[in-house]
């Protein structure tokens, strides 16, 4: 089903003047658009390395981030497998690892947390999707700074090497949790990882730099390079969300960058910024960390909700309910997220009166987030819902995230947090938010944009099998963890047998249930990988607009060539969600299709 052939006649001015289409038809790379001048002038086949590792094409960079993120997700998945086995079957020799020592255990949980947030959620949701989608969805040929974009990925890749190196050094990988609280993280005599700790911190800091560069690129691109005719409220929601998230990231990460420098000095040259015995203050780190750490939750949440907005509109053939409200709630959430950080520190030794203020702001932030979910649910009303694989994932996001959202209320309410703080209730709560964000929405995105990225359709049957094989075990991991949290299981403990109150009948069984569900969930990911790579090579060929969607990326060939729009850069005439418009026979209306009259 080819899209809007009638719109192809309307070449925008700037496309004609530079003949972008001509340039991009000849080969996928290496034409004048490639900023890398040294190789750009040749017309022979680019070698593999230059094409896939030295490209400045936003699509290639997006895929670099995507594949790197997937690889890191395997690392994150493996680590959780090892330490969950230890929790369920203490002292067992874990297949593929061996016996888990306490030091191993701490290293594994720290790696799991930091990898999943910094090297999976961030690169996939922001960098991969942002890079791939932004230029396509706003109708331009690339990011405004292609070389900066490449540099951003390269710094990101180095950060992974540094993190990897931290496993090989003396003392092993850092085990002070992803929050890295000093004095534990500051002194080798406490954490026993003299080189692992600074390397971990350096890796995180490099990752921040990579995303700062990427974020500047995203924001500038969307502000300046939208297709002619694309007004503020014509921008697809996912693009808005990535931009707001990038700004949130930029505004929140600064203090932590400064904090990281201070902590790195404490670790390596012997300063005492966070050493209470020498005039420093360990709580300061917590403030710097969570001033970033809480907005960071929304940095990854917002792109995920953007993905959901794109997908539920397409597959319910509905206009997004109250576009502007979604946008305002996103901005409102972003602003409020700067005033809630200390809810992570209610019992950390801050002035207890401060908890009142932060408890209040925390409950307030539930309002815009809840409203966003209401909007998505309202969008379904009156729709013509098709339960394709991407739609299943998008709906699952709403259903599961709701649980994550409401359980957050228990923790934001300071009085209840006294009991729940640092228990498995917290773990279950944030996995009910982070798993939908980092995996459910990403699976939605990958299955939805796969035809565009690779020009092939994914297999629906395997897709559905993978969906149910992920969603069902997911709930069976974390519902037991909620129950364990209620019964007092505290976090980051490698063996509960020393705590008689935590070995009452039923509790070890719940731990085993969670672990077995996890193993099941991990096993089902093989189906996804199989489906992904099988479809990549052998899948049915995809049309340019297989889902009959409105946004610009679907109005160009799949996969789009270098330069994105071979027929000329598009001009935009309407918003992205004009589905089932009463004046039209077709139930969709591409953004770049000129009105008939």
């Amino acid at each position, binding site marked *: 089903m080819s899209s809007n052939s009638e719109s192809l006649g309307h070449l925008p001015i700037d496309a004609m003047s530079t003949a972008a289409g001509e340039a991009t038809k000849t080969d996928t790379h290496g034409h004048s658009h490639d900023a890398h001048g040294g190789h750009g002038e040749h017309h022979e086949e680019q070698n593999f390395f230059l094409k896939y590792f030295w490209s400045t094409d936003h699509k290639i960079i997006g895929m670099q981030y995507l594949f790197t993120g997937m690889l890191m997700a395997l690392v994150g998945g493996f680590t959780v497998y090892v330490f969950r086995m230890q929790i369920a079957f203490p002292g067992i020799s874990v297949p593929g690892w061996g016996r888990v020592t306490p030091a191993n255990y701490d290293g594994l949980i720290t790696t799991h947390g930091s990898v999943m947030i910094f090297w999976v959620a961030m690169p996939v949701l922001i960098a991969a999707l942002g890079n791939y989608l932004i230029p396509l969805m706003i109708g331009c040929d690339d990011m405004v700074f292609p070389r900066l974009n490449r540099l951003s990925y390269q710094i990101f890749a180095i950060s992974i090497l540094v993190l990897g190196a931290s496993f090989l050094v003396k003392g092993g990988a850092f085990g002070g949790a992803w929050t890295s609280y000093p004095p534990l993280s500051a002194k080798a005599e406490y954490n026993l990882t003299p080189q692992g700790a600074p390397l971990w911190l350096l890796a995180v800091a490099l990752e921040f730099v990579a995303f700062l560069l990427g974020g500047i690129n995203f*924001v*500038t691109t969307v502000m300046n390079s939208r297709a002619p005719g694309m007004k503020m409220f014509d921008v697809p929601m996912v693009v808005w969300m990535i931009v707001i998230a990038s700004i949130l990231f930029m*505004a929140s990460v600064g203090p932590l960058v400064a904090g990281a420098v201070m902590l790195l000095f404490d670790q390596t040259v012997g300063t*005492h910024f966070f050493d209470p015995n020498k005039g420093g203050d360990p709580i*300061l780190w917590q403030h710097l960390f969570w001033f970033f750490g809480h907005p960071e939750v929304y940095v990854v949440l917002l792109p995920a909700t953007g993905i959901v907005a794109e997908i539920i509109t397409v597959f319910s053939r509905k206009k997004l309910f109250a576009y502007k409200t979604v946008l305002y709630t996103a901005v409102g959430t972003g602003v409020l997220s700067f005033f809630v950080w200390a809810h992570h520190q209610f019992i950390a030794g801050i002035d207890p009166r401060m908890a009142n203020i932060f408890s209040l702001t925390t409950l307030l932030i539930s309002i815009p987030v809840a409203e966003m979910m209401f909007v998505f649910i309202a969008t379904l009303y009156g729709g013509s819902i098709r339960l394709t694989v991407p739609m299943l994932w998008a709906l699952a996001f709403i259903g599961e995230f709701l649980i994550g959202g409401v359980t957050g209320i228990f923790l934001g309410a300071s009085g209840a947090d006294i009991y729940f703080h640092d228990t498995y209730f917290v773990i279950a709560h944030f996995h009910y938010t982070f798993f939908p964000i980092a995996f459910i929405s990403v699976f939605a995105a990958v299955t939805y944009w796969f035809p565009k990225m690779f020009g092939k359709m994914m297999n629906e049957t395997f897709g559905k099998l993978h969906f149910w094989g992920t969603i069902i075990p997911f709930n069976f991991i974390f519902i037991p963890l909620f129950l364990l949290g209620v019964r007092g299981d505290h976090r980051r403990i490698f063996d509960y047998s020393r705590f008689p109150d935590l070995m009452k009948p039923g509790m070890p069984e719940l731990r085993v249930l969670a672990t077995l569900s996890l193993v099941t969930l991990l096993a089902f990911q093989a189906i996804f990988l199989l489906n992904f790579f099988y479809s990549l090579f052998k899948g049915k060929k995809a049309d340019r607009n297989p889902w009959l969607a409105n946004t610009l990326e679907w109005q160009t060939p799949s996969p789009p060539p270098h330069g994105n729009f071979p027929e000329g850069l598009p001009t935009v005439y309407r918003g992205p969600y004009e589905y089932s418009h009463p004046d039209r026979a077709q139930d969709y209306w591409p953004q770049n299709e000129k009105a008939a009259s």
Partner: protein
Amino acid sequence: MIRPIATTREATGIPTGRLAVWWVIASEIVIFGGLLGSYLMHRLGHPEWAYQSVHTNTAAGAFNTFVLLTSSLFAVLAHDAAEHKDGKKAAKYLMITCLGGLTFLCVKGAEWTHEIREGFTLTSNTFWSFYYTAAGLHGIHVIAGMIIMLFVAADAAKGKELQRVENIGIYWHFVDLVWIFLFPLLYIAK
């Protein structure tokens, strides 16, 4: 280098390069903001740090403030020349700005040498840790600004990429502004 069409668009009316510089500055403000905020919190809790800060050289700091402000003036003159398409003149003014940066670093080096000889090092106590970290981070920005400026000046002298003269100028003003905050906080407050 031929840019993507994306780079040449200006939906906001602000050229892309300048827009990006503003975002760079926004992200830098929060980095310095976090560091200085942390310093202020500590400083308020430790009045005894005044006995440490008396050892900083206020005269040298004041001189450096003057040097940086003067160099910023030349950055403005460079921008003005670039506006008039006079690349050679712009390059010349940029070089003078760079010279200002170099003077600043030399004075800083002399100060630090003296202070370290007196035994005030990065690890002496938390005041000195902040002193060296904040000024050091600022110094790195001065060096980075100078390096970029040399490249911009080289291009400008050939009449190329003149819009970058303004962009590096904006960045230089920012570096200058950070110092205006550092100077009273680290030197004058005694």
